[in-house]
């Protein structure tokens, strides 16, 4: 019995270095991306994450065009493209009447078209697949260091700007009346979104990296009424999804990225149903009420 469990759960990680790297990389990613996802969701920008993931493509493609399938140039390219789109869309919404959803849509669509154009100029479809879907099982030391750095920057920034970020989500007009931090905090936050998506795209690809950001956050929303526990829970759900996804990928030989995201998807659906603020609980509890 113990042997079977060991074989199922521990052995793949204990015996294979590539699995250890994959685990380390994806756990680190969860640590940074999941809290960022919670704030994206609470700011009603859940789909912006998806838009940003598309927006990264031309940068990554440019890196790929000039340097081939190398991690650093592609990452830096993605970072630049993402930041241009985030700042552009953010600035348009801050300084004009257009809302962020519209400006973000406009910017990312333009960016995506440029990206597809660049990949098609000199790429085979196999390369495109790699950029779009990543490979968590091929993370090298360079990539792990990069992800580690991104996580560190994310957690430190969140710790410093936590109060401003919460105030900016909860009551932006109030924050503007007591402090000038409103706009800077918004842009710092968009920067963190880009950073974490770029960090995720080696492992999960540009399209799926947003999944590790949003799904645990969306699931955590069904369990708690406060931001701090929500972030912690999202990270834990992220961890669980990574472990489950990698094991699935190993045992059933599924592609690792989708396996991780789908594991998070399972947690999401379970949370909708069984969460303390989920469907079933609301149905059962609300048939009874207190006297006051």
């Amino acid at each position, binding site marked *: 019995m113990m042997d079977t469990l060991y074989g199922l759960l521990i052995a793949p990680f204990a015996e294979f270095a590539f699995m250890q790297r994959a685990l380390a990389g994806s756990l680190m990613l969860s640590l940074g991306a999941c809290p960022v996802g919670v704030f994206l969701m*609470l700011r009603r920008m859940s789909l912006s994450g998806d838009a940003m993931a598309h927006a990264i493509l031309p940068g990554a493609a440019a890196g790929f065009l000039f340097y081939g399938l190398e991690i650093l140039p592609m990452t830096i390219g993605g970072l630049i493209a993402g930041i241009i789109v985030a700042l552009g869309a953010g600035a348009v919404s801050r300084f004009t009447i257009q809302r962020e959803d519209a400006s973000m849509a406009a910017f990312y669509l333009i960016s995506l078209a440029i990206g597809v154009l660049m990949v098609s100029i000199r790429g085979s479809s196999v390369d495109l697949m790699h950029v779009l879907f990543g490979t968590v099982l091929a993370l090298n030391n360079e990539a792990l260091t990069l992800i580690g750095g991104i996580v560190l920057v994310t957690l430190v920034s969140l710790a410093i700007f936590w109060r401003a970020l919460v*105030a900016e989500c909860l009551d932006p007009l*109030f924050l503007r009346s007591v402090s000038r*931090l409103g706009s800077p905090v918004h842009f710092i936050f968009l920067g963190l979104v880009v950073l974490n998506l770029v960090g995720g795209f080696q492992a999960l690809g540009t399209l799926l990296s947003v999944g590790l950001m949003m799904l645990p956050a969306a699931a955590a*929303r069904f369990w708690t009424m406060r931001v701090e526990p929500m972030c912690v829970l999202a990270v834990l759900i992220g961890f669980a999804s990574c472990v489950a996804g990698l094991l699935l990928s190993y045992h059933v030989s599924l592609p690792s990225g989708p396996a991780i995201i789908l594991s998070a998807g399972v947690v999401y659906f379970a949370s909708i149903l069984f969460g303390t603020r989920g469907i079933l609980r609301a149905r059962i509890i609300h048939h009874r009420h207190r006297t006051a």
Partner: protein
Amino acid sequence: MTKTCLTFRDLTLGYNSHPAIHHLDGTIRRGSLTAVVGANGSGKSTLMKGIVGVLKPMAGTVVRAPGVRAAYLPQQSELDRSFPARVVDLVSLGLWPRRGLLGRYTREDRDSVSQALMAVGLGGFEKRPIDTLSGGQLQRTLFARVLLQDADLILLDEPFNAVDTKTVGDLIALIKRWHGEERTILVVVHDLELVRQNFPETLLLARQPIAWGETRETLRPENLLRARRFHEAWEENAPWCEPDKHGDHGHGPGHDPGHNHAHDHHHGSGPRAA
């Protein structure tokens, strides 16, 4: 210590180059309690936004006396009620002027949050999620936050909306307490009876100040009539207001209070029909 808290110099505030407050001059005395009265669209909220600095003037300036900290309760809050926060989290935002971005909340701070809630009649509401509050309870929560901000200048934009009579009484008592503490207070109010009973000074706005000074004088029927007759709509083709055509606009308590302040010269402003 200077006696002036706020100085308006030829202040014009508005949107899309249409003025909502037009060439306002005058001063707000330190420690004064002023009601801001006027019809819809007369520029009351705009003036508040201009004072707190979330709306930049199109012309002229608002000068705050050095060191004056403002607390602002907007009419239309941008508060996100679906945000997972408790009453105590919302009220604690009022500690910002004291603790800023990184300062730790002390036990004292937490006590003062509870006291502020107690003062607005919401003792024991600390742990309540904000999306379970009624409209009036939320308004009182925001009052508690203003209380916590401990500001020298307090701007309340229609604070009595959706608030029941008893609570209005409580909130008025709170405002009077602030007044007693020599804080400067501006309140946008619609209920003229409430103004007559509780506010020593009144600014009557109709995009321009109609009257400004002692409440009984300001709210005389002829002033109110004139305030009602202003033209609420913008005129798309109103000519541009030339800066050199208006000279002295002395307004404010102490300067001829209660007197007719309507400008009789037409400097192409269009929006006024008086």
